[in-house]
């Protein structure tokens, strides 16, 4: 592999790594997003930046209404099937903030982690 090819491969590799990092960590432009699916949340843990107010996009991919509920964040929002809402959050202290679907508590908990 010549120098140019090596540089290109390195650039592609770095770009892929950066892309993989964004899957777990909220992007810079689009609001971080949580997707309610059957019996699970996607992602199970969403990492956001601590110390800055943020908007959270909650998408309901289920065929029934869900209720995003977090006692730690003092937030509750019903989301109709196939709909999405934006939830406004203040600057979070570093830490972990569980949430759940109050209409389907058997789905367990998801987690928002502020770092």
């Amino acid at each position: 592999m010549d120098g140019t090819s090596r540089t290109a491969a390195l650039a592609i590799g770095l770009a892929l790594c950066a892309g993989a990092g964004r899957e777990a960590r909220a992007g810079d432009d689009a609001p971080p997003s949580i997707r309610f699916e059957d019996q699970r949340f996607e992602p199970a843990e969403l990492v956001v930046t601590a110390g800055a107010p943020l908007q959270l996009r909650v998408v309901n991919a289920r065929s029934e209404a869900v209720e995003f509920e977090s006692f730690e964040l003092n937030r509750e929002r019903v989301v109709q099937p196939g709909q999405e809402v934006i939830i406004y959050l203040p600057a979070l202290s570093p830490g972990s903030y569980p949430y759940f679907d109050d209409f389907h508590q058997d789905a367990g908990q998801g987690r928002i982690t502020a770092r």
Partner: protein
Amino acid sequence: MRPSLRIVAAIAFVLGAAQAVRFESSNPPVAGDAQPPPDVATGLRSACYDCHSNETRWPWYASLAPVSWLVHRDVSEGRRRLNFSVWSEYVVDPGTRTQKLEHIRELVLRGAMPPWYYRLVHPSSRWTDLQRDEVLHWVDAEIAASSTTP
């Protein structure tokens, strides 16, 4: 020992042992209280604040098991579901504030809150029709305000 005395002794022992399971009767700081008109605030304080705020007036029996377990469960669950002392946090998210208000309206209209056993021991929590209407009017006005908030 007579059977009746044995039963009394057993009950006393169980009640005594129950006192070992204690919960702290604390009131965290008020982060940002709701700001309804004074008449509405009086009604909310008399009927709701013991379980739905950080300004709980802990009764003497909140230290006496097993009743204390029920009191602490109600306060803990009540604060998690609706806490007037963190109202300023709900305001940041108009959707959450609207949902809290809609829950209040529904429960007031159904007469489901405060629970019957709370009203039984707290006569001041029993609203007059006027107090109830004042609270509902405030709730409706707040919902309308939320819907116009960007």
